[in-house]
């Protein structure tokens, strides 16, 4: 099972490169998405076996499920999106090729049972998505791609220093497989282990978008094509997060929990703070969504530090679904208005009712409006903070979230309501037929899921989440 999920895209890649036909290439991406989803469902039902270096366990199951579902939705959206692309077939084939490699490396990161392999694959995600970010070939996109590759490569190099330090701290054990690290973590040299944790948290945190190393994130998310932004935000950040979770568990077993918690809390609150400061001055609505991703990654880090793992997993699911739908809707707006500037967009609901309401509802989902899954998760986190007696942290958390909420809400409402200016009306008239049905359906499905899961979580998903908790 696992081998199929990993080998199929390689074959598909070769086919895509050989047969440079737009329809065929998009079909291959869709086929992989469907296959990915089916296999994941089979794995959920316990049909999977492990192969060397890759295995499914209780922790990565939920991550894989989220990735698979988001990828399926992105693939549906993508088949509508590609129709509007006015590029030669060769370029589309490269585009599809890179999507396949990108998803393959993310899947590999999630499934790998070895820290070294995880590292290699995380770096592979950077390299494959760099092309996707540069896809539009403008001055801005090359700048974003350059920053992305450079910052993430240096970050990941730092993570490798962390791995080497970890290797020093392990003493006699010469292996990087997580199972063996967990078994022997109690005997590790704590000084080196602490050093290695800083490096790894910073390195993989750069990839995940935690604050001190988040600078690539708004640029990359804003300049990438919208389906790619959705994948970056809803899947890539999670896979880097999984590696951090696994390393955090080593710290937990080695009795360095307090230290690791402090680091995570620090980075988490810094992320929230950065978002709260920057979200007010934003002129580009896709950058705004990217900052919201930084904020949500910060919340995940804080939740992990608090030990509210159930809430963290709920938040992860909710954020992935809501943010993917948010980014896809922003893609629709970009198609309609032909601009990323917030100032030039108004009267969205008047221009295109469905896009407009999707924009508003996505916002409600991401800002934790009750019955959104994010509401439950953030509520649980605040409850955990109060139970543990961190009243100041709790107040700070709520304050920062409110500031971010206000910053985003102001922009969303300004864009959604109001009247369209006359020159914009013409552009919209021309672009109206670019947005097809396929570009609404995925968002609707995901938003319904987010709001339904806030009230009712199906028992089998609940079981998976409970299982995943044990792996943290």
């Amino acid at each position: 099972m696992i081998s199929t999920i990993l080998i199929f895209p390689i074959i598909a890649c070769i086919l895509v490169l050989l047969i440079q036909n737009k329809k065929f290439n998009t079909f291959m991406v869709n086929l992989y998405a469907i296959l990915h989803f089916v296999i994941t469902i089979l794995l959920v039902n316990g049909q999977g076996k492990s192969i060397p270096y890759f295995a499914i366990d209780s922790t990565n199951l939920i991550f894989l499920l989220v990735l698979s579902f988001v990828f399926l939705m992105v693939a549906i959206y993508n088949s509508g999106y590609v129709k509007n692309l006015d590029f030669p077939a060769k370029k589309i084939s490269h585009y599809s090729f890179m999507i396949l490699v990108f998803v393959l490396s993310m899947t590999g990161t999630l499934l790998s049972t070895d820290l070294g392999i995880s590292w290699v694959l995380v770096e592979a995600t950077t390299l494959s998505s760099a092309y996707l970010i540069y896809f539009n070939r403008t001055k801005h996109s090359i700048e974003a791609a350059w920053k992305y590759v450079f910052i993430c490569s240096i970050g990941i190099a730092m993570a490798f220093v962390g791995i080497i330090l970890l290797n020093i701290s392990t003493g006699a054990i010469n292996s990087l497989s997580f199972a063996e690290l967990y078994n022997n973590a109690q005997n590790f040299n704590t000084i080196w282990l602490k050093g290695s944790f800083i490096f790894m948290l910073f390195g993989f945190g750069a990839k995940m978008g935690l604050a001190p190393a988040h600078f690539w994130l708004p640029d990359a998310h804003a300049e990438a094509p919208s389906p790619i932004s959705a994948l970056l935000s809803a899947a890539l950040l999670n896979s880097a997060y999984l590696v951090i979770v696994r390393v955090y568990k080593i710290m937990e077993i080695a009795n360095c929990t307090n230290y690791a918690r402090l680091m995570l809390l620090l980075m988490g609150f810094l992320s929230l703070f950065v978002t709260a400061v920057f979200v007010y001055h934003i002129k580009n609505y896709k950058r705004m969504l990217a900052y919201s991703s930084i904020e949500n990654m910060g919340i995940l880090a804080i939740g992990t530090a608090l030990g509210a793992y159930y809430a963290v997993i709920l938040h992860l699911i909710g954020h992935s679904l809501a943010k993917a739908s948010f980014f896809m809707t922003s893609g629709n707006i970009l198609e309609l208005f032909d601009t990323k500037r917030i100032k030039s967009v108004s009267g969205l609901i008047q221009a295109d009712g469905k896009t407009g309401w999707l924009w508003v509802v996505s916002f409600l989902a991401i800002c934790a409006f009750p019955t959104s899954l994010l509401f439950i998760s953030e509520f649980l986190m605040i409850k955990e903070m109060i139970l543990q007696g961190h009243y100041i942290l709790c107040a700070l958390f709520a304050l920062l979230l409110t500031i971010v909420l206000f910053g985003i809400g102001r922009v969303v409402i300004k864009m959604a309501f109001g009247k369209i200016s006359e020159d914009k009306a013409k552009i919209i008239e021309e672009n109206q037929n670019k947005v097809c049905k396929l570009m609404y359906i995925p968002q609707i499905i995901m938003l319904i899921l987010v709001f339904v899961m806030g009230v009712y979580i199906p028992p089998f998903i609940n079981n998976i989440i409970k299982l995943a908790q044990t792996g943290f």
Partner: protein
Amino acid sequence: MLYLAATSRIIAHIRILVAQGILLFLICCCGMEHIDKLNFAFLTVETLVVKAIVIPWFLFRVLRKTHSNRDAAANIPHFYCLVIASTLMLFGVLASNYYISTMKLISPMFFGVSVATIIISLWLITIKHKIISNVIEFITMENGIFLLSLSVAKEMPMLVNLGVLLDVFIAVYILGLFVNEINKEFNDLEVSHLSDLKDYE
């Protein structure tokens, strides 16, 4: 590394890379009797072929295409660069000597030099103005990390080594391509051109 801080001609930088590659190759040959043959062969070939030949050759080509030879305006005069780099080097060696008593696993000489290399590279990245010199510093940093992994007496698993090599190589390749593209797009390789994307105007 000190030379790298002191000089501003990019060709000289690339020559340093070649020298570093060969040095690493020699270190591999001398110091690695205890690891198995396959891994040994792989490491030596990697350092000699990739680090000393392929990457520098590729950078030479990029350089010829982009006609940029001098990173004229570093933020800090060369003399101070040299002083700071030397201090960092001293710090690296001292740090390694401090830790040698606690850990037997590490060969202190390599450890000190590699720590110094990594820090100096990171610092040079922040002060250089041409993006191609940033790429070169990135590679020296990777070399430093490689030396660090050699200084630990245990070797990494073969598969990880292979993956790391592949990733670094592709990263350099992609960065090189981007250097070309940026050159085409902006007619120059100054870092300051790449500051359009921001939230404050």
